[in-house]
């Protein structure tokens, strides 16, 4: 078995289809400008359409066009809000495939770095079991909210961004970037479960969050260990983590902004070993993307263009 695989080599059963990661990558680089958002996303319409074909997201695409991702990804999950059931399903499915990729990332850290210290291997092995349980937990929670594995396309963006060939960067990407994002998302989900009185969801996600804090702590400790006595390596690792955090902020959807879909979980992250300085950096890195107002305005324009194209195609068909 070779070492270091690519994200498109992650094995899946026949229920799953892939989403092109370019959409997520573009979201991370968009400015807070309606025209720029529209011009970046409109050409991707055929790609997005292809990736949702025959999935539960196809009706959303048919209704909103390529903007559906903006409307779904970038709006908070709040009890009683319009469309929250659909957003919750998408969020839950996104977490489920994220846990799958975290499982695979932890497992590959065992195989890819055979010379790593034994304590590192023990931590990664424990993480394998934890992530496997998380996959099982979220499979149950998906059923709980009415969605099943493979209902939506899977982006392997998390694995692609986080899985560096350098062990210090791997743990920075997987254990601090990916698992840190998980802390933010799960704290948000716990709030939603509290608001809706969903004890099953609240308790299960709270256990998962406790595990993730432990995994971030593994990452915080191993980044220091792998870069001990090599400040230049440490700085490169920090730079890699900043880059991953920027990508994982999805253009400000995960940030400290008032309109963020998911807020940064400061308390949980501090407990996990992030420093105040790192969290301030994260807040700065993630704040620069399009505001929710920009996204909604852009989404309306994209939907108008999409509807116009559909009407044009229908006219051509009749002619």
């Amino acid at each position, binding site marked *: *078995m070779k070492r270091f695989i690519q994200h498109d080599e992650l094995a899946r059963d026949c229920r799953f289809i892939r989403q092109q990661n370019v959409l997520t990558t573009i979201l991370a680089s968009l400015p807070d400008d309606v025209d720029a958002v529209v011009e970046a996303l409109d050409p991707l319409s055929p790609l997005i359409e292809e990736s949702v074909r025959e999935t539960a997201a196809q009706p959303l695409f048919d209704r909103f066009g390529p903007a559906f991702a903006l409307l779904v990804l970038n709006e908070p999950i709040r009890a009683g809000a319009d469309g929250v059931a659909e957003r919750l399903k998408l969020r839950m499915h996104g977490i489920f495939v994220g846990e799958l990729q975290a499982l695979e990332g932890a497992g590959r850290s065992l195989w890819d770095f055979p010379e790593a210290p034994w304590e590192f291997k023990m931590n990664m*092995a424990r993480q394998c*079991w934890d992530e496997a349980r998380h996959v099982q937990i979220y*499979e149950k929670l998906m059923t709980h909210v009415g969605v099943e594995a493979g209902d939506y396309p899977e982006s392997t963006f998390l694995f692609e961004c986080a899985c560096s060939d350098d062990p210090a960067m791997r743990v920075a990407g997987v254990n601090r970037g990916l698992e840190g994002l998980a802390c933010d998302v799960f704290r948000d989900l716990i709030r939603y479960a509290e608001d809706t009185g969903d004890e099953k969801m609240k308790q299960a996600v709270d256990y998962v969050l406790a595990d993730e804090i432990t995994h971030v702590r593994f990452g915080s400790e191993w980044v220091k260990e792998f870069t001990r006595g090599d400040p230049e390596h440490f700085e490169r690792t920090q730079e890699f983590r900043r880059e991953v955090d920027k990508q994982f902020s999805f253009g400000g959807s995960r940030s400290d902004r008032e309109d963020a879909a998911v807020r940064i979980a400061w308390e949980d992250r501090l407990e996990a070993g992030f420093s105040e300085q790192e969290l301030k950096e994260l807040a700065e890195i993630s704040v620069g993307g399009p505001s929710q107002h920009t996204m909604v305005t852009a989404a309306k324009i994209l939907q108008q263009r999409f509807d116009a194209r559909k009407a044009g195609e229908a006219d051509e068909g009749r002619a």
Partner: protein
Amino acid sequence: MSSATPRMYPGASPDERTTFDAYSAFDVPADLRELSGRYDVESTARRVRNFRYAQEWMMMIGGGWMATIPELPVKTGLGKIVWDDAQSADEFGQRLPELRCGKRSVTASEAANDGFAALIQEVSAPESPDLTIEKVTGMFDVLKPHLLAVYDRMQRETDQIADAPTIEILDDVMRRTRKHIVWGDEVLERLCVTDEKRERRRRRLLSVRELLENCGGVTGEIADESHGSAERGEH
């Protein structure tokens, strides 16, 4: 103190003994173990390093496979097994300093010979997502049953009193290994639903088992007892 008072502690002369009843260390509860064992300290230490080698590699291979296996329950099942194998390797490692191998020996792993190292590489070789049967067969139909047989024999034949810490570790490791073998068999029964797939399982089992028998197994000295071969001798 009066001479009629029962002594609580022995004195220096023969008539200054305590009055407590005399028992052997094996009387309560009755303990029929004898001071004898097949392996001396050095031999046990070498075997523990061999066992640790196998457990550590199974942990790493399972970790690598999770991304290459499409069946969800196999992925998640391996997650737990990887952690079990890590704990087993760790427990074996913790025993090594107690067997005069030095403080730093807790992470010492040693293949019995090049043949066993090659066997491990062969077990790890299936990579493509359509090879779950070959992956699971090599590890769960051949390697783990072999290890269970060797652990079981070691547990029975090592010095039951002097080497009891190794026996305790083997208890834990064998409990986990038995569960893994049952799990692997259930997975393979579920996956091998056609003659062609059952034949793939059979072919893989035979080819890995041949390598195992040729190299003498995890210790290099014991043929696979689970198939009735005789031990080639140790001590």
